[in-house]
């Protein structure tokens, strides 16, 4: 009888849970098994702090705490409407104490979420001005540095951060900058140290497993699969981990499975990238109709992001250029984006958009810039090789394309074949 009751209740829940709203209900089920969904930890915290704020509308700490939990919610739900709530909270906090450092650090986080890295950098710097002892502020400055292309300064900021307080926050940043500088093993080592350190939010640890998985996925899909599964065990249904597994499936040319993973990831977190992944995998199995549907969805997702105040020029430019859609817009967006984000990625996407618009000489200038930290990123190498193949530097093109594929035979669902074909033709 007990089993039957549970089963029927589950059936109903399964229908309700589709739009993701009945976590509460699930947790009642799990109570019986004395199991708690880690996701709801953040919700419990949120509720607690919201109540506290009502009782103490003049306590600046609560405004900051609530803002930061909202930001964690964005990480977990991708719901960027929380940013507006944070804006409102911080405006009120500023009236209580305009020199409270955490206000500016939190503003910086929102700016980054909206991809406004220059404003974010200014806010992060203001935060360190008001309180130079807080390690996370240096991390925020370094984050902006990376997006704006000031890599040397990012190294300095992260070193300051870890010198004051080595912990999860600093270890995971060190992993990324090591990756950018081509030290992949060092990046893995730092990410594993971050995982061992852990965080109060299980999602954070899952995120680090995914980052580790992406590093392993370059050349070791088996290990990467373990990493992604570990992320899922840490944080059930974690969409970036599902995307990772999808890419591994695609690397094995198991596109049907890849589509399953990507679609599941998208239903959990409607991020443009997952729709694009689905479209790419559908393209590989010649399901043009599905691919078009998914690319349409990708556009819709980008469109919605723009509407909610997130600048997605760079991401959209790459998407359009990669899929030979609306190449004029792609170039325009790559150019505006490069103006505000002169990172190696900014330069790389601009180079690729120029290439797609047959402006090969200019493309080469930016692709050289994109390689300024070294020849480590397979996507940048692929773009550089393609550009060289059009500027009569065939030997160099061959070398770069070969290198891209050697670093990662699976770097892209749709472009690895292009790389192979181009190599053959050279």
């Amino acid at each position: 009888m007990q089993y039957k009751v549970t089963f029927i209740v589950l059936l109903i829940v399964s229908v309700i849970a589709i739009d993701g709203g009945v976590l509460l209900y699930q947790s009642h089920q799990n109570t019986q098994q004395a199991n708690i969904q880690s996701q709801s930890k953040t919700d419990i915290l949120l509720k607690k702090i919201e109540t506290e704020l009502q009782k103490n509308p003049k306590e600046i700490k609560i405004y900051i705490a609530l803002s930061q939990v909202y930001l964690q919610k964005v990480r977990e739900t991708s719901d960027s409407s929380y940013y507006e709530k944070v804006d409102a909270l911080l405006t009120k906090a500023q009236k209580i104490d305009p020199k409270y450092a955490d206000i500016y650090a939190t503003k910086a986080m929102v700016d980054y979420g909206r991809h406004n890295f220059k404003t974010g950098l200014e806010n992060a710097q203001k935060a360190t001005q008001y309180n130079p002892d807080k390690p996370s502020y240096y991390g925020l400055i370094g984050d902006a540095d990376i997006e704006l292309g000031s890599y040397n300064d990012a190294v300095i900021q992260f070193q300051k951060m870890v010198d004051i307080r080595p912990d999860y926050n600093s270890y995971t940043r060190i992993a990324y900058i090591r990756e950018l500088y081509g030290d992949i093993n060092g990046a893995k080592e730092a990410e594993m140290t971050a995982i061992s350190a852990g965080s109060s939010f299980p999602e954070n640890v899952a995120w680090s497993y995914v980052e580790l998985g992406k590093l392993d996925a370059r050349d070791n899909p088996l290990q990467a699969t373990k990493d992604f599964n570990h992320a899922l065990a840490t944080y059930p249904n974690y969409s970036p981990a599902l995307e990772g597994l999808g890419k591994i499936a695609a690397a094995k040319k198991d596109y049907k499975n890849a589509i399953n993973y990507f679609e599941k990831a998208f239903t959990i977190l409607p991020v443009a990238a997952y729709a694009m992944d689905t479209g790419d995998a559908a393209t590989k199995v010649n399901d043009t109709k599905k691919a078009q549907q998914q690319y349409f969805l990708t556009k819709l997702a980008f469109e919605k992001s723009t509407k909610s105040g997130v600048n997605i020029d760079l991401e959209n430019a790459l998407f359009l250029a990669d899929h030979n859609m609306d190449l004029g817009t792609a170039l325009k967006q790559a150019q505006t984006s490069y103006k505000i984000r002169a990172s190696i990625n900014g330069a790389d996407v601009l180079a690729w958009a120029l290439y797609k618009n047959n402006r090969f000489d200019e493309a080469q200038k930016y692709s050289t810039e994109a390689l300024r930290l070294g020849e480590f990123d397979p996507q940048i190498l692929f773009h550089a090789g393609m550009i060289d193949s059009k500027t009569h530097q065939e030997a160099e093109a061959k070398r770069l394309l070969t290198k891209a594929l050697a670093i990662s035979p699976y770097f892209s669902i749709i472009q690895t074949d292009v790389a192979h074909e181009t190599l053959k033709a050279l």
Partner: protein
Amino acid sequence: MLKQLLTEQNQIKFSHLKMYKYVSVFAGVGLILSSLLGTNIYASSHREAPTIASDPKADNTDVYAFVSPDKANTVTLIANFLPFEEPAGGPNFYRFDDNVLYEIKVDNVGDAKEHVTYQFRFKTTIKNKNTFLYNTGPILSLDDKNYNMAQTYTVIKVTNGRSEVVGRDIPVPPDNIGPKSTPNYANLQAQSIKTLSDGTTVFAGQSDDPFFAELGGLFDLLTIRKLPGNAGGGVDGLKGYNVNSIAIQVPTNQLTKNGSTPTDPKDKASIIGVWSTASRHKLKVLKENGDTDANGPFVQVSRLGAPLVNEVVIPLKDKDKWNGSKPKNDAQFAEYVANPELGGLLKSLYNVNVPPQGAFGSATQRDDLIAIFLTGIPGLTQPDKVKPSEELRLNVAVPPTQNRNRLGVLSGDKQGFPNGRRLADDVVDIEIQAVAGAAYPLFHPGYTPDPLATQLGDGVDANDVPFRTSFPYLALPHDGFSSVPHGTTADTATTPTSPVSSNQKADALKQLEDQGNAFNSEFKKNQDDLNNQFNQAKNEVNANPQNSKSVFEKLGTALDSFNKSINQARETFNNKYNELKTTLLQN
């Protein structure tokens, strides 16, 4: 079967079921659209590293130091880490961090430096590398092969700079998962308690969090639920949570400065100061050849002596600075003790007539609080020529008493806080009362504190479970199987359980099913509608790409209204469920 596995299987079953329903009912594009509700779309290619992750594995929650009640010639020191462990913490459960240096430090001179230090380094061994399950079957002993993620530790004793390994490969018991995975937990824990070569007894592992406090109120601007706070009525915010503890019981003569076991509290060797720290490796951001991260120098990231200093005394903005600081540099924080924010708060919130307070070094500095937090109390816990620093000071010559009082020294029980700290000492009440001026007359004879000062408190006077009478004294950890997760279902936990007949239950189930069907048809209706609009929009965009923006906007409105209807229907369903759940969930 093993609970852990069971839970996982259920999760898998559940998600399959979910996907199945999903696909069959909402095939097509509308299915995907249904998750595009509201504005929750967001694209990110840049790497957004978490910034507000806190560091529970290196977070010192409480330090205890007391003369062992059943072994008066030994001192027990306990340091707790990893706050708020939900007992059902799978699948990873709670472990010490192998990369953290945990230390308990003792200053037996009063010069704000450690003279005896116990260092703990942990090592995790995964027995079956093909799974990341915490256990692969019931754990019956500490060397059971089913204890898949076993941890062991090394103890190093540092005496005045000289290091000596006093214990190696000491086992940490598993977390208390539940009766299937960890039957006879008490026995497992007992197996993990070891006496080392130097006579010290050690334990490291999970236990009930011995701290008890009205956390909600304490951090909610010191709200006292039932004024003045000495008549219960508080809610123990730590109830049912576990921590990871490191406990050692040391022969007293190994801790005192001259190797004696003092019996006279006036003996100059009888006062020790205790604090614990956690340190992490500093990394070089860009490695050079041959660098290994695990060899990076340690940086202290957490420190704790007297209770609540971090929460009550040190302001938020200085927390990282405080956690990285050493007692010998504590002069920089003296201001916060001499002129505490909490004093002003008690005055403004409860109109307590607190003693005058002023800047450090001024005539009105709170010398009573400086004694409690920085120098020790003269004649009890203040060492000769003490250098002011924040340590938990203990006079090891004050013998254990049978007449323990939770208010310790304030009540005349000189064996309790702030003379060291026993597990049952009500440090929240003691500190609130002290700030309100309860101990002020000791330093200013003739001063009469506000009568409220000796009545204030948080209304939580004891731990949720009893402590034990022998080492490590801490209560066993709450097990994951029978614990109720915090926050989510407090109502279920407190629901009175009147018997429910099977008819009532069947009826409730029927009602819930009907409501579920109503929801389904509502969803279907709205979803068909949305599908139509979506297809229409697609055609429009294909025909006139330049109009796509306005089409998107229209579609956005449709999505919003879809979202609204569904939310409404869902709420109705949830209400129904809440109404019926007491009946449904009963056995």
